């Protein structure tokens, strides 16, 4: 019973924390709310008129939503890059960052689920997917695997930090034997969520652009570059706006992870490009379309030719220790790497999978305003959720939030 009382107090305290803050904080949250409302409005239009308000068509049947979903699964998986050394390798440097990382994973997963729901033609019958009530096509459909692994990952990533924070909130140490098994599990699970998401595409013999063995590993590499890059940026913001202490060493260690992952990603990209262009078959049409355009259709060229140079530039700069250890340069590199991988995994991966279509017909895809509105709204939702989680976590970690046992003080 007393645990419930602590929980109640925690909820009240955290509500108190997240509603108070500096003017900047209020502007930030207000801005996010506004974007979320705009996103909701766009979503209502989409519900009303149908998905025809998006840029998608029978030919390109997945677009911005699924692109973002794919990318964010990677971001969520990347939290593991922090969990692993902290809990398992006992590298103390990351301890500060790991709560932030896991909070980021939770926010990313919530965004993933929101993107999937936004992409559905019939969100009102989504209950058909709930095992028991509906019909769950497991194990045949990779989408059901994805639903399972994502939700379990969400659960793990909520419960571990919650347990730690809940203990800290009461001024107690978190017990290692409780959370370390969960942490180890989450390491494997993070790989699983991203691999399964890759299999979602990789398993389609209809789409040769996706149907290659490198897709899964490349997903992992790019995720482990983009995710920690985002974490670095977030840590930088937290460092400058809160009293939460994050050491340079921590950030530099994460930067090392980003660097290695970005290098591996680049090697895989080269391997893929070699295969597509050295001995091109008709299966290389999508790659041709992506990089050079096909039959005069070249909507993706600006995107991919933004992403590739950014990616290469960031990787090269990160490779040099001198540049990497300069925090200003590091932040810049992380930012351009993040953008590059977002483009590569969205416009560079999902969309060209559909172009050309099964019979070689080219229908191009560009997102509409409504689609962009919904997307921004969901990103704002993610940022909003993350801010709330991070603010509470930081409050507890800094000792500002502590459970005060009213019974003991009264007696």
């Amino acid at each position, binding site marked *: 019973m007393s645990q419930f009382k602590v929980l109640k107090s925690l909820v009240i305290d955290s509500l108190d924390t997240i509603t108070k803050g500096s003017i900047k904080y209020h502007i930030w949250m207000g801005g996010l709310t506004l974007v979320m409302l705009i996103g909701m409005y766009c979503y209502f239009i989409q519900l009303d008129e149908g998905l025809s308000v998006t840029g998608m068509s029978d030919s390109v049947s997945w677009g911005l939503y699924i692109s973002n979903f794919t990318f964010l699964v990677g971001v969520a998986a990347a939290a593991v890059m922090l969990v692993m050394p902290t809990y398992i390798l006992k590298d103390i440097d990351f301890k500060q960052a790991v709560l932030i990382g896991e909070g980021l994973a939770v926010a990313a997963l919530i965004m993933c689920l929101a993107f999937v729901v936004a992409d559905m033609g019939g969100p009102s019958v989504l209950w058909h997917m709930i095992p028991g009530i509906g019909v769950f096509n497991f194990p045949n459909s990779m989408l059901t695997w994805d639903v399972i692994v994502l939700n379990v990952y969400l659960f793990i990533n909520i419960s571990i930090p919650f347990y730690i924070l809940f203990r800290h909130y009461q001024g107690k140490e978190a017990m290692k034997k409780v959370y370390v098994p969960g942490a180890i599990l989450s390491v494997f699970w993070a790989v699983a969520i991203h691999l399964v998401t890759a299999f979602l595409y990789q398993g389609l013999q209809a789409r040769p652009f996706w149907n290659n063995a490198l897709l899964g590993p490349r997903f992992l590499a790019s995720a482990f570059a983009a995710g920690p890059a985002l974490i670095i940026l977030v840590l930088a913001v937290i460092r400058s706006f809160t009293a939460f202490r994050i050491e340079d060493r921590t950030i530099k260690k994460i930067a090392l992870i980003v660097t290695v992952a970005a290098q591996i990603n680049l090697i895989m990209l080269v391997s893929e490009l070699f295969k597509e262009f050295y001995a091109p078959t008709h299966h290389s049409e999508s790659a041709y379309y992506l990089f050079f355009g096909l039959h005069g259709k070249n909507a993706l060229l600006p995107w991919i030719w933004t992403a590739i140079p950014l990616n290469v530039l960031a990787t090269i700069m990160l490779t040099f220790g001198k540049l990497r250890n300069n925090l200003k340069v590091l932040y810049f590199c992380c930012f351009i790497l993040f953008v590059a991988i977002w483009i590569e995994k969205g416009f560079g991966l999902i969309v060209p999978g559909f172009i050309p279509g099964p019979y070689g*017909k080219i229908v191009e895809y560009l997102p509409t305003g409504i689609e962009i509105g919904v997307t921004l709204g969901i990103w704002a939702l993610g940022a909003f959720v993350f801010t709330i989680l991070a603010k509470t976590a930081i409050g507890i970690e800094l000792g500002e939030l502590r459970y005060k046992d009213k019974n003991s003080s009264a007696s």
Partner: protein
Amino acid sequence: MKNKNLTYYFLILLAVSFFSCKKEGEYHSITDKIEAESKPYHGKLTSDELLAGSELMEITEGKHTFLILERKGQIKSFACIECHSKPVTQMKSLDGQKAHWDIKMNHANSEIINCATCHNGKDMNNLNSLTGKNIDFNLSYKLCAQCHSSQFEDWKGGAHGKKVAGWAPPRASMTCVNCHNPHSPGYETRWPVQFNTQKGIERKEGLDH
């Protein structure tokens, strides 16, 4: 030691059976399935009802026995001898209204084919084979088969031509003259019945491609 090996074998067996028995009763390919489950259909679905309104007759050609549409009843001016009371040569010399003014021969060329190739000037009620034998109007396909033997083979089997009703037995096929005008058997060029304007918009194409 031995026990351990056994366990491994068992596990491998289990894994193999798991992957190979993905679905029960599944055939390696669709042709295997067709071969294995092949069996003449005598189910409750028939085309009898659909065929009820049509005059049909059964024919047997080679191994195939099936129904075709009766023809004579469909020819407006049958029987021909009602007009063709005299041989054609005599009728041609007569003054007055010409019959069959609408018939334009566009079938091979005049060196190979003329009216008399198929019509018997002395017995207009029947058709005329190349060897001068009578062919009933109802069995006009025999006439076509004299030259178009490969089409005839396909037609007998069902690869050429259309069915009168549905897929369900009994099989009732249209004959050559149900689709082809024997005097001008080719198909004309014409415009497609529809044009999809949305598809063009989607692909950002002009109409003039």
